[in-house]
């Protein structure tokens, strides 16, 4: 009986000790983060960037090694497919170049210029390597990147905006980050709607039943170059509701991005 009581008391004091130590550690972390927010973030960042760079290089090396051992037939087949795609894309590029020249001359006629400072950045970390829907980039304040700058990929696809900028690196929060709101337009009808990020390159929006929107519609950000956000993949229209749910998918697969462009002259605020 006495033994059980002692054991109980020992367990209670152990629990008490655990709670006290847990609270003390949490408070200490909060104090450090509150007192030195920039310093802590910067020092972690300066230690992390070389490690992420090393990780990227190591990943590239492993990929090359795997490629070395792939079968000859598979490589020949892939080469043939790539050549076909290249020919098709060359034709598209020629057509787009003509349109771009036409667009530039029209803009010049109206006294507007679309020339923007574009900063190229290498992607160090992408989802799902990060718990938050962000990209970590190797461009920072030394490259004249500022918070709010729009991040683009594959030419004209807007991915997100810079949320935090350090000296040599920065974090870009993706428009598809959970809860992130972005005002966009339907390219075909110029109707505006508010997209809410759902994570992993997905968005959703509630629009009135009579809104002219169909599967396959392209959604764009406002601005002179109208960067694309994504395409409508599904519309869930419940006849009893006055709204329909629009599901949108980003045009880019985040896990395959290696380089992005940061529009140096833009500053996007939350809506």
């Amino acid at each position, binding site marked *: 009986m006495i033994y059980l009581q002692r054991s109980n008391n020992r367990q209670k004091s152990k629990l008490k000790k655990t709670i006290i130590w*847990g609270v003390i550690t949490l408070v200490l972390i909060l104090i450090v983060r509150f007192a030195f*927010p920039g310093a802590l973030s910067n020092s972690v960042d300066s230690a992390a960037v070389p*490690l992420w760079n090393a990780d990227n290089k*190591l990943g590239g090396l492993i990929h090359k090694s795997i490629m070395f051992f792939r079968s000859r037939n598979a490589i020949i087949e892939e080469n043939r497919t790539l050549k076909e795609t290249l020919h098709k894309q060359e034709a598209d590029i020629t057509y787009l170049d003509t349109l771009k020249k036409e667009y530039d001359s029209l803009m010049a006629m109206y006294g507007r210029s679309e020339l923007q400072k574009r900063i190229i950045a290498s992607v160090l970390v992408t989802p*799902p390597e990060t718990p938050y829907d962000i990209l970590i980039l190797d461009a920072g304040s030394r490259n004249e990147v500022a918070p709010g700058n729009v991040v683009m990929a594959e030419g004209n696809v807007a991915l997100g905006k810079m949320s935090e900028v350090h000296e040599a690196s920065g974090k870009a929060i993706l428009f598809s980050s959970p809860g992130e709101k972005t005002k966009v337009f339907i390219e075909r009808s110029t109707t505006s709607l508010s997209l809410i990020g759902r994570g992993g390159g997905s968005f959703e929006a509630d629009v009135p039943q009579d809104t002219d929107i169909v599967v396959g519609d392209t959604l764009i950000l406002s601005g002179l170059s109208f960067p694309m956000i994504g395409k409508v993949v599904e519309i869930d229209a419940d006849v009893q509701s006055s709204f329909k749910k629009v599901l949108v998918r980003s045009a880019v697969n985040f896990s395959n991005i290696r380089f992005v462009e940061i529009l140096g002259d833009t500053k996007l605020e939350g809506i």
Partner: protein
Amino acid sequence: MFTHYILARIIGDIALFFGLFFLPWWLVAVAGVVFLFIYNDYIEIIILGALIDVLFSPYAYTMSVSSLLYTSTGALLYIISPFLKRRLRFYNQSS
């Protein structure tokens, strides 16, 4: 025995730290939770949560609730771990 225990714990901590840079975050988080049950008073779980927040939170500069998500989760896990350990059948009560 005691030295081995401490040494294994230190090596585990270092592996977790570097794992944050080279492995998917969830793998490191799962390893952290496993260590929480293997070691006594595994306070490193709170530091691991804080590191995840500082490294990956989009607004680590601010003191918003979302930028402290993993720090608070780590603290909560640490605090409830003794209760959980007492209720788990496979857990060795004598450790």
